[in-house]
């Protein structure tokens, strides 16, 4: 077992979990979105690290016998990044609207607005 490699993964997992924790525990809607993007970015990093080949290079073909990194995760993550920013955009515009409608973007205050408790 390659402990070093594992530690590498674990670091990303820690990042992911911090993101998830921000997302779940923070009442501020913008911080939730930030948490989401931290979480997602960490997942992206994990993907890319899967595609890494030791001693490899970016998958742009060159002459000669070169080891390349795996291009597929890159492609997937390109897509995923775009999806992430799309989600962020929609989420943020929802936040703007929520702020207009409620005057706050704190979850607990919205609850009070809605249910009066």
């Amino acid at each position: 077992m390659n402990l070093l490699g594992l530690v590498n993964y674990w670091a990303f997992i820690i990042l992911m979990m911090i993101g998830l924790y921000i997302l779940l525990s923070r009442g501020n809607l913008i911080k939730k979105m930030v948490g989401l993007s931290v979480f997602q970015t960490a997942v992206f990093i994990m993907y890319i690290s899967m595609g890494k080949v030791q001693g490899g290079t970016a998958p742009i073909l060159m002459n000669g016998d070169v080891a390349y990194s795996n291009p597929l995760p890159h492609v997937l993550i390109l897509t995923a990044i775009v999806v992430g920013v799309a989600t962020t955009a929609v989420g943020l515009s929802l936040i703007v609207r929520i702020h207009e409608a409620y005057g706050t973007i704190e979850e607990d205050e919205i609850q009070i607005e809605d249910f009066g408790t």
Partner: protein
Amino acid sequence: MEDKIIIRVGAKTLIPFIMVFALYVQFHGDYGPGGGFQAGVIFAAGFILYGLIFGVDMAKKVLPLSVAWLFGSAGVLIFAGVGVVTLLLGGDFLDYSVLAHDPEHGQHWGILLVELGVLTTVFGVMISIFYSFAGRRGLGT
């Protein structure tokens, strides 16, 4: 910010370069990092810079929201349209090989076209979103 002459001049000189860089990214995508998406973002960033410095209203004069909106849809149309064209030419959906006599050229053309579609959409979408947020300014707090 309209009265800060240095910024205005600086931006005016900078923005064309950003645009050119975006085009470079677009067309160099085949050989190095980059492609439609990144190019679109840079293109949009250039324009947003313009909007930030000269005001959203000014920017809207150059490129109205409806046009940005149109770009956003048009890109998807281009992309999917390529797919339909390949269908009509007898290939599978998005099978660029049928676009030219030589499959390899076909692929080149196809990739170029779809990257253009991506660029258009991303540019249009980013501008639209920028306008949308900017349009809300002053209504909130």
